[in-house]
């Protein structure tokens, strides 16, 4: 029924009192694939992962993980997955080694296996030197690595990573990305939630954008970018009073209405680098001085903005589009 799918969810709904946290999520992850679940805070990313990892029962809909039903076969699901949450869920008074051995024991693995596996993981995650120190003394990046190591003790084929790098400094984030890419290269299926567009871009082949508990877009990063039109031109003017003139100049070369953000004017264009030349001519004809002029591929930020009407990391979301979606979503 669910073939060789690692994750298969149909019409997942979860309500908390009056709040409809999930409003009919469909999700498919094939084995060996990395899927990024992208959305702002409160979009329903964590709720989705909690349902798939058997921590929460869906109000409606059904889901299988590794071919097992998350409600009826929770134990089989738990044996097949590793879960790393938003906060490093390790025991900070136990040493790194003790943490791994404890979790190994709770997976009902043989003590001999747990011993060997713990050493392997400590080594692989570069924690061997700190293995006998209480996790309390670890840095944020080390804790995350230990947390991820703990979820790999039983060699799960599917890994759920709920905002794995939230709160990490850039260097630790890069390190963790490396680790995740390595796991993927070895065949692990990963479902990853993130609110960092860059992270989804870096790690995931397939991106599912959710907002207000619904899937609003789905595709590869390239597909999503194409969906809102190809390249964008972006110019920054030196003199703020000339912004309106700049808009007029940009409009003459663009394929869509320019957006203005303070000194910056951006607009979708087609035709590659000749557009740049034309833009410069148009600006020059008006005598507008620019401090910056670029042609760039749209980022996932642009995708998100065009899909939802608000930025991905903006929590006080725009009211109008939200209302529209809710209207369609309600029964």
């Amino acid at each position, binding site marked *: 029924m669910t073939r060789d799918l690692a994750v298969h969810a149909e019409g997942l709904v979860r309500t908390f009192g009056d709040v409809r946290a999930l409003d009919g999520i469909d999700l498919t992850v094939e084995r060996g694939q990395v899927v990024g679940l992208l959305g702002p805070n409160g979009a329903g990313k964590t709720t989705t992962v909690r349902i798939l990892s*058997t921590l929460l029962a869906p109000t409606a809909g059904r889901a299988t993980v590794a071919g097992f039903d998350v409600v009826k076969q929770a134990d089989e699901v738990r044996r097949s997955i590793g879960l790393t949450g938003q906060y490093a869920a390790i025991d900070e008074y136990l040493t790194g080694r003790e943490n791994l051995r*404890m979790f190994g024991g709770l997976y009902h*693995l*043989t003590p001999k296996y747990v011993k060997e596996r713990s050493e*392997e*993981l400590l080594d692989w995650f570069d924690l061997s030197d700190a293995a006998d120190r209480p996790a309390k003394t670890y840095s944020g990046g080390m804790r995350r690595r230990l947390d991820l190591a703990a979820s790999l003790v039983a060699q799960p084929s599917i890994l759920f990573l709920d905002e794995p790098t939230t709160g990490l400094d850039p260097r630790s984030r890069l390190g963790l990305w490396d680790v995740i890419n390595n796991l993927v290269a070895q065949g692990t299926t990963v479902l990853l939630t993130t609110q960092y567009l860059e992270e989804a871009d870096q790690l995931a082949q397939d991106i599912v954008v959710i907002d207000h508990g619904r899937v609003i877009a789905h595709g590869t990063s390239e597909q999503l970018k194409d969906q809102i039109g190809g390249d964008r031109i972006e110019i920054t003017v030196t003199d703020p009073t000339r912004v309106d003139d700049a808009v007029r100049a940009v409009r003459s070369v663009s394929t869509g209405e320019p957006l203005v953000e303070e000194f910056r004017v951006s607009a979708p264009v087609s035709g590659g680098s000749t557009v740049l030349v034309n833009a410069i001519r148009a600006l020059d004809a008006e005598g507008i001085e620019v401090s910056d002029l670029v042609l760039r591929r749209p980022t996932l930020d642009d995708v998100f903005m065009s899909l939802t009407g608000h930025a991905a990391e903006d929590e006080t979301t725009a009211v109008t589009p939200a209302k529209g979606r809710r209207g369609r979503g309600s029964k």
Partner: protein
Amino acid sequence: MATLTMGTPQMMRRPLLGWTIHDGLVVARRNLIQTVRIPEMLFFSLVQPVIFVLLFAYVFGGAIPIPGDAGADAYRNYLMPGIFGQTVAFAAASSTVGLAEDMHKGIIDRFRALPMSPPAVLVGRTLADAVRQILVLFVLSITGFIVGWRISNGLLPAIGAYALLLLFAYTVAWIGSWVGLHMPNPETANTAGLAWLFPLTFLSNAFVPISSMPTWLQTFAAYNPVSTVVLASRELFGNPTGIQPDYWPLQHASLYTLISCAVLIAVFATLAVRKYARTTSR
């Protein structure tokens, strides 16, 4: 970066005692390691009862007469089992706060996503909190000896008294676990979550004879298992008991303690395990 082994790990066969006991022991071990790693917590959990011993023995002691026993050391001998009873009742506190912290840190989520036996987290918690009381009772007993408390009924009954106290600690640890699972955060657990322990331990014969209380309070105190575990300990240690009002639990202190512990564990273990299954952190 070297490759990490991926494949099928070796699973253990089901141990003789079942997974709940196996997993419970793994969790209990973890909780006991925590105790060793945070010596200041253990230290402060000992300081309060030791201060109570000194306070009651030297400050209040002279003002509290023990009916039926006028000896100079009567109150101190009467007091010690009361302190034991009150102290082990506070095993519930570490269960409440410990679980609230585990939920807060997301470690309960991780446990719940493991293929482990679900009640094991609570079994391990209560077991560790009861085991910790062995050390607490040991330190308190030494303090007692110093202020003049004596075991005067032989070794075997004394062991019985300690066993009964530990059973009681295990019982309240289950109640504390159930309370802890309802706490929204560790801060609340540390205050509101412990509030019930004070009336429970003071509305008993732990510090004053029940016969000195107004009648309506006597009824509550007589049926309070804190009273009967304390009274049973006094009998087993051979310490003065005072004169007991005519309530069945006070006439059969050991039996009533065993029955009420069994009933309370059955009720609160069921409630706590059920609550745990539905618990979501944060």
